[in-house]
């Protein structure tokens, strides 16, 4: 499905990604792990064309996307739930969903309200009235109505209360079960191990480890070496 091969990305002169390669296959949930500043967000932004890589290739479903603009990449079904959530604060919940709505999506607006009943209660509230958890739910709901063929999430549980984290994990499981592949950046290893088929670990702009969930679970050394352990 998604193939990233040897991409190099920069912020101005600062060289952040130094040859990242990864792959997400049909129906898979893959996580991208690594410490703060490792380059996870930059990898996602490169895939989405927000920080276009200066070299390397990215393709999705057999189509080369390296030279495409963000909106063209998004139209091919790559939906990003960004780290900052980026809910439109002056738009209501309903409007946030309406501008994202894509008639080819299997999820309509009523479907995501069923998935997130809290959003239904808040549908006429502006985005800046939502709690952190509600914003995250809206960001995921917005991606779903946008018709994802690959869902990409950047730390969706960051800063949220444990109950809400559980709720989001359950939703991600449901989404995975519909067969849509997911690329997930996450610091919470518990969450990752519950959901993922495979893992990549990024360190200073390079992939330093990749393995299946079974391999990763058994490999304490990788976790000790590259990840700030969070086992709550």
């Amino acid at each position, binding site marked *: 499905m998604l193939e990233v091969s040897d991409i190099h990305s920069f912020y101005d002169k600062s060289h952040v990604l130094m040859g990242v390669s990864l792959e997400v296959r049909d129906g898979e949930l893959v996580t991208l792990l690594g410490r703060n500043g490792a380059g996870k967000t930059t990898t996602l932004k490169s895939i989405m064309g927000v920080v276009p890589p200066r070299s390397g290739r990215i393709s999705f479903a057999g189509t080369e996307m390296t030279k495409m603009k*963000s*909106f063209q990449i*998004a139209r091919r079904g790559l939906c990003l739930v960004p780290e900052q959530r*980026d809910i439109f*604060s*002056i*738009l209501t919940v309903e*409007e946030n969903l309406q501008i994202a709505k*894509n008639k080819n999506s299997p999820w309509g607006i009523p479907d995501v309200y069923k998935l997130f009943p809290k959003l239904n209660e808040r549908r006429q509230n502006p985005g800046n009235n939502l709690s952190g958890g509600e914003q995250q739910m809206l960001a995921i709901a917005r991606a779903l109505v946008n018709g994802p063929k690959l869902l990409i999430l950047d730390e969706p549980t960051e800063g949220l209360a444990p109950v809400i984290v559980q709720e989001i994990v359950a939703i991600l499981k449901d989404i995975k079960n519909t067969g849509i592949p997911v690329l997930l950046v996450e610091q919470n290893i518990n969450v990752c191990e519950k959901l993922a088929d495979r893992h990549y670990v990024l360190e200073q702009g390079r992939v330093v480890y990749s393995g299946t969930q079974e391999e990763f679970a058994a490999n304490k050394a990788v976790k000790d070496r590259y990840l700030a352990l969070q086992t709550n």
Partner: protein
Amino acid sequence: MTLYLFQVLNGLGLGMIYFLIAVGLSIIFGLLNFVNFAHGAFFLLGSYFCYQVVALTGNFWLSLLIAPVIVGAIAWFAESNLLNRVYNLPHAFQILITLGMALVIQESAIMVWGTVGKNIAVPDLLQGIVQMGDFAYPIYRLFVISFSAVIALLLWLLLERTRFGALVRAGSENTEMVSLLGVNIFKLFSITFGLGATLAGLAGVLAAPLRGADPFMGAEILGIAFVVVVIGGMGSFTGALVGGLLVGLVQSIMSSLWPPGVHLMIYGSMALVILIRPYGLFGRA
């Protein structure tokens, strides 16, 4: 008393024309993040196209229909062939290009229509006055107020009740996220720029029978539009409406009370608003 009513109505008409210009300037700034220095020139074009259509056909209504559309088309063309080449450069370049557009339009107007102003007659249907008791008021000015009010309502519905409007508001907050939803943000820029220019052109047509057309009207109105937008708040529809009406009323009432103080009062109220609310009455930080 009737003198004040007269001035208040004049102020409303003037204010609605200011609103039509300022709202486009404000929306363009909100979404595209630069001040469009060509906005006054679009107003000027509206007035001259009105003059030209009336001179050729004698039909003001035709000019009301087509002049704003032509102005919008010119702006759309300039945006998608000039401005869109510099969106990856600092905003100073975008401002410079709109300033260049303003000068080209103004000088072209002088070449085509000369430096002497042109008069445009009030259309037959709207000539004369309405008489209410001992109060008389020109029909055309009432038409300007009510027609602009209808346009303002339609524009409000467009911005607040349609997907296009929601995209403009969303884009004013975060263009990158709008692109990530699969929206061609550059197309949204073009449409918005064209829409703003169309409104300025419409204001130019409505103002033509009141003040005529001259090559320097663009620069003059741009100054007032800045004041309106600063008072109302950049990017705000309500701000442009309230700011436009405020400036129109102040200008009209002051010109009967104390004519030399008109500009003092206008800039004074702007300074006051900046002191109390630096982002304008309806602006956001």
